[in-house]
């Protein structure tokens, strides 16, 4: 509005007090907010069990799982099997992870490596992990090496794929910079390539760890004589639903704890990153 023009005698337009706009965004998040869903589910389950609507032969009550878990710990069975399972998953993850990173660097940093390795990996990606188990049994037998090999293969793919795509996404401008600064190949690798690929590797590690636990569940039901999966299979034969339930809870906790641990490392290693939702 132009203050110098117009009718000076006209009454000024009435002012209004603007109403606070209705916020359309979801509001401020709470740190514990994600516990609400699982909490409600647990409540629902507990109510059904307490009122007798849920047959304990179908699904035992939550407190049964806790007491059975405590019993298993007292007997030492849970720790023993857990240690075996964790060792299996960890060695598979280690083998798959090392292979994934090495091959990702080979195929990401050299053209020939890319043509050879990446093609094969993309081909293999289409085959579900369960489908290769018969061959794994054929090659590695039904003992421990087969189990670790299956877990390693399962963990390999996400780690390879994420590391490889992070390597390929390294900004060409940084490569130019390295050239003008006269960096050696090793300095280039250490200062630019590795830090640039690290976020992708860590993301792949999270997926890889989940894949390793999944593969563990499958291989431990094949001719295992120890491990959480063995414990669950045995319980199924004796219709001990409470022990089976403890096994499931342990798997859930393991997956969750692993993811949490990797994210913790991620936050420390990638502290230079400024991202939302941290």
């Amino acid at each position, binding site marked *: 509005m132009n203050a110098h023009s117009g009718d000076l005698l006209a009454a000024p337009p009435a002012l209004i007090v603007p109403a606070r706009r209705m916020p359309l965004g979801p509001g401020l998040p709470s740190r514990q907010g994600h516990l609400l869903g699982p909490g409600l589910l647990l409540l629902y389950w507990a109510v059904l069990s307490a009122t007798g609507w849920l047959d304990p032969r179908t699904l035992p009550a939550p407190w049964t799982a806790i007491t059975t878990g405590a019993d298993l710990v007292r007997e030492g069975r849970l720790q023993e099997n857990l240690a075996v399972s964790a060792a299996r998953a960890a060695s598979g993850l280690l083998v798959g992870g090392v292979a994934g990173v090495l091959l990702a660097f080979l195929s990401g940093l050299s053209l020939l490596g890319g043509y050879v390795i990446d093609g094969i990996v993309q081909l293999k990606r289409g085959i579900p992990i369960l489908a290769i188990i018969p061959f794994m049994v054929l090659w590695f037998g039904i003992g421990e090496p087969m189990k670790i090999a299956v877990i390693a293969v399962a963990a390999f793919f996400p780690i390879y794929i994420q590391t490889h795509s992070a390597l390929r996404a390294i900004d060409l401008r*940084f490569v*130019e910079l*390295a050239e*003008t*600064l006269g960096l050696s190949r090793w300095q280039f690798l250490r200062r630019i390539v590795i*830090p640039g690929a690290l976020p992708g590797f860590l993301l792949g590690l999270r997926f890889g760890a989940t894949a390793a636990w999944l593969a563990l569940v499958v291989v431990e039901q094949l001719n295992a004589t120890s491990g959480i999966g063995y414990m669950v299979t045995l319980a199924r034969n004796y219709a001990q639903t409470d022990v089976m339930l403890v096994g499931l809870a342990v798997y859930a906790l393991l997956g969750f704890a692993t993811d949490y641990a990797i994210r913790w490392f991620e936050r420390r290693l990638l502290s*230079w990153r*400024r991202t939302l939702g941290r």
Partner: protein
Amino acid sequence: MSAAVRIRDLKRTFTLKGVLNGIDLDIAPGEFVALLGRSGSGKSTLLRALAGIDHEAEGTGEIALPPKSAVIFQDARLLPWLRVLDNILLGQPAAARARALQALEEVGLAGRENSWPHELSGGEQQRVALARALVRDPALLLADEPFGALDALTRIQMHDLLRRLSARHQPAVLLVTHDIDEALMLADRIVMLDDGRIAAEVQVAGRGDRTLLALQRKRLLAMLGVVEEPQRRGA
């Protein structure tokens, strides 16, 4: 005086853009040369050829450069995962740390050595890039529109800074720009590039004299084919 930079009959062709059609150019030690031209005139192509990063180009010709040169890009190009000091020291021996701190002080960022690049403003990031160039003690500084992405006020401060630092350290400078005023303010000599050739060279004179500067500005604009409308006042 022997040349710091000598270029003879330099030709570059690209499949995509930018061509050089036989460039001859000498830059004396300590001389500040601005490379002026429209976009597509080949000025960035020339700078990239001198920086040795024009792998995608085919070409012939002769380039002789001093052993120590440094490049400043339009973006600061700091590695986001290295703190400011480590960015400056990138590729330098650890013993250069004291020099790096001194360079940081020279660009007016003393005490910011432990900041992350994203904690700095665009102008501050470009100062770090300048410090990264300085710490290499270059005999030739190549700058590819280094202030193009900065706001007008920051750009003025950066002009002063670059002028002071190049006066103190005396590197030969090749500044690529499309800003005539920037070229007039900073350079000893302005080289105009058009269609991959040197179209004109102008020795900048009388920096303190406003009428003389305005005259040179008008001449340069005319060479670029721009006729300025007389400014209308009031109305």
